[in-house]
């Protein structure tokens, strides 16, 4: 897995990249009560605010971690936002992206680097 400074994780799965938020982020947010997902077949650029996640405390944005196209979103989160707290790195993935230039992932953190950042 790769990690961003915005506390997102990326997992390469065949020719798509699966994106979610880290356990650390889900703990910091507190109980998640609402998730707004992007539209599929949208082209996004790194840093675009494409999802909104609301917890009992506040609303936060989720940004596109790399350039690419949204090819799938996890509709289960709309009905059950609490999944983000229960299984942030598994069932609670947010979206899948088709990424032309996979070398974009090389600049992201690995697990050790991410753990150092949040320590």
């Amino acid at each position, binding site marked *: 897995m790769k990690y961003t400074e915005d506390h997102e994780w990326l997992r390469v799965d065949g020719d798509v990249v699966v994106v979610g938020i880290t356990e650390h982020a889900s703990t910091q947010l507190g*109980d998640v*009560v609402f998730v707004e997902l992007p539209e599929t077949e949208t082209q996004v650029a790194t840093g675009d605010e494409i999802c909104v996640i609301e917890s*009992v405390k506040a609303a936060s944005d989720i940004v596109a971690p790399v350039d690419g196209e949204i090819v799938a979103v996890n509709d289960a989160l709309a009905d059950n936002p609490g999944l983000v707290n229960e299984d942030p790195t598994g069932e609670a993935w947010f979206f899948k992206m088709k990424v032309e230039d996979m070398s974009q992932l090389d600049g992201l953190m690995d697990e050790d680097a991410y753990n150092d950042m949040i320590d």
Partner: protein
Amino acid sequence: MSDLKRTELYDFHLSHGAKMVPFAGYEMPVQYAAGVMKEHLHTRSAAGLFDVSHMGQVILRAKSGSVEDAALALETLVPVSILALAEGRQRYALFTNADGGILDDLMVANRGDHLFLVVNAACKDADIAHLKAHLSDTCTIEPITDRALVALQGPMAEAALATLVPGVSDMKFMDVATLSWDGVELWISRSGYTGEDGFEISLPSSDVARFADALVALETVEPIGLGARDALRLEAGLCLYGSDLDTTTTPVEGALEWAIQKARRRGGAREGGFPGADRILAELENGASRRRVGLLPEGRAPMRAGTEIFAGDQKVGEVTSGAFGPTLQAPVSMGYVDSAYSATGTPLEGEVRGKRLPVKVADMPFRPSNYKR
């Protein structure tokens, strides 16, 4: 957070895993280890302990020694009948300004030979100055700084507190009494700000940590932070001063007519005689141009404070408090709308992140309150 004050329960909060945040000049627990959602639901199903020691406690005493004189003096600052408040009873009141706006909301108790006031933390210095400026000729105003204040709220609050203080079972909603626990004098009221049955307990600061420990040692009692408190009071339709009420909102706009008894209205025995009476009395008869209402978003997206409310293309109001309501498992808000759109069930729209989403005007409380009347 070096400029912030701490309550006597600071170490208690940390020992229960509290996350501390600045609030009204104090470092207060926004949540404990359990988290906002669990704390909220625990208060609704069992009993929650809240530290509200940051709030202001004030004793108002007439120089004549008569509590009636203190009541009449306070009536010059609030549109509420204090004279009719019997010994051992408490009621909700509002300090108004000359424009009919609200300076603060407060609780007033008749404790026999004096009145006991509990005011908001953020307003307490101004409130005390206001009392001294207007009532010093006839009254003494004594801020109580050596007592803490805690609230125990929830359907199991009575059973829990009664194990320490058996006398509380005889109290009804808005009763006040002086009882004792382990030699400590407790000033107790059967009230709170969650929509649940419960108690607010003033006691010497030196004893509060011991008292809080004794309460949370009971299986049904957990400490609850400000995060849960906010959604609890919102579901109960209760105003937060500074968010839902301020100097630009009048009691009638704020849908608080119920707090203004007949005796202070037009034709009443002590009509008017409080700041802003002309405007407030006229609004009581004719209504105000806008009104505080409950707002239930139809989707899952919370409409938080500042969300603009529309009827068609016309902006007709704004949300002043909004959150996800854990008891309702749905978003809940309150705010002000033009009176023409304030009827229950009126369909409106709230603008969330550039999108207009459906929201309906709803009755408050959003769920029935469980007061012990």
